[in-house]
């Protein structure tokens, strides 16, 4: 990791009675730099937090928002839990996957977009919806969603 990332992580330690409390925020910071946390990143975090690499890895693998594999430049999550499904989100997801040529979740061949279904994003009153790089787009139909995704670089 870069020296700036390391310094930013170290500055978080004082917010927690035990520095391990800063592990989740630290993983976010490393992901911001590299997109995902690879084996080297795992070892670096372990050293920084005085943990074994396996202890970092079990945290990485427990949470949906942490990635140990390279990701597309943009993340598109389509919510498919019950409230969204009732309003057609699974049909929408299938249409978007067909449009992108990705099936059952994954990354486009050009590495532009990773698309996945997601379990309830807390936007049940404005279904169907998707989250693009953390920004919510709500009350969607296929055309509106396609335009947003096609507009991603």
């Amino acid at each position: 990791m870069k020296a700036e990332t390391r310094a930013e992580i170290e500055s978080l330690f004082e917010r927690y009675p035990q520095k391990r409390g800063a592990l989740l925020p630290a993983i976010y910071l490393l992901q911001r730099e590299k997109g995902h946390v690879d084996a080297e990143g795992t070892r670096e975090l372990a050293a920084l937090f005085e943990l074994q690499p396996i202890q970092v890895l079990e945290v990485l693998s427990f949470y949906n928002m942490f990635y140990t594999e390279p990701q597309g430049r943009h993340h598109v999550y389509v919510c498919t839990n019950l409230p969204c499904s009732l309003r057609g989100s699974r049909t929408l997801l299938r249409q978007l996957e067909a449009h992108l040529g990705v099936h059952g979740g994954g990354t486009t061949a050009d590495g532009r977009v990773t698309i996945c279904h997601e379990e309830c994003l807390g936007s049940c009153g404005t279904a169907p919806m998707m989250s693009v790089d953390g920004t919510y787009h709500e009350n969607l139909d296929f055309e509106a969603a396609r335009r947003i995704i096609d507009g991603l670089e």
Partner: protein
Amino acid sequence: MNVEPYVKNYLSEHYGDDSFQTLAGYEAKGGFAGLRKALAQTPEQVVEIVKASGLRGRGGAGFATGLKWSFMPKTNERMKVIVVNGDESEPGSFKDRMIMERGPFEVLEGIIIGAWAMGAQRAYIYVRGEYTRAIRTLEAAVKELYGKKRLGKSTFGVKGFDLDIVVHSGAGAYICGEETGLLESLEGKKGQPRKKPPFPAQHGAFGLPTTVNNIETFAHVPFILDRGVEWFKSRGTEKSPGTTLFGVSGHVERPGLFELPLGTPLREVLGHAGGVRGGRRLKGVMPGGLSMPVLPPSELEVPMAEEFLSQRGTHLGTGGVMVMDESVCMVRVATVVSYFFRDESCGQCTQCREGTAWVHKLCQKIERGRASDADLALLSDVPKLMEGQTICAFADAAAWPIQGLLRHFRDDFEAHLREQKCPFPESFEL
């Protein structure tokens, strides 16, 4: 951008006004009046007021807030911690996101009052990682309070009252909404719930005395302190006073949030949402998030408060009301529900890890028209082996909705066995 509540009451009165998310705008609307009244009283008096108000936690379990606060040790040997549960992940629930995005200072004022009452020096607001806007909004609000020296050393100018507030982002795991799973996660670990006892008030975050309350719970507190116990109790029911933000989703004309007194009849809640879409007939309602058993249309008069819903075999949960019209295949609903719980089981307890997988497999088999009577019998049995058998309530939450669907819509399941296919061609796609 979320849509502000269609029906407002005290909590959401100013949610349409963007300036309400700034310190100046919040104070212009009378913000911090409750805190000032709290600081003029002893911590013990404030705990007594919250107890007398009858406020119940809005995170799903409905535990008495004042009583929970009174569990915190009175001594100051160790740092005391408040943890605010903003890990709203219950499918069908989207109220806490609204409160964090539109009323961040209501939450912060409630936390500061809680810190005064319980003698806490640190508060962590744990917000689910997907809620990036809520996280930014809360962070900006906390920063503004530090900028005006209202937090940290001598919080709100009170000597000896030193409170620090940290906004902490989760990373996508439903189980972290369970309070001890959340504490593990806050400590930088997998969010696997802890065995209790010890309870958080003795051994909570980082081993310190801790109280965990939901976002909405804290947002009600300033109003109770400012306007008084009698005012608060004049809304809602005797056992469940105050309002809540009901989130109505699914097959209604106008899905969204509606701030209504607890105890409002379900029929009235649905009426605010414009009723069932396209004049279709209602098939069922899940009244309290995905974990809570479904109600049939014959139960529409039920007052939406825990003491009434629990008599009908379900619960208020988080007030997330999911509406299903006559087109819906309840076996598909069971398939979606069971997929979610299989996916989110933390894997710690066998009954839950194995049970959720079995239940999902059986639902899928029935939905595809490949199941036998024995499979349906098994689907009735497995949830019984899950509930009450595990470290946390997740297995109950996974078992209950399946049991509810089987109780009220067994015909749907049997029709799949008989016809060896899904007999609901108009139902939502899986």
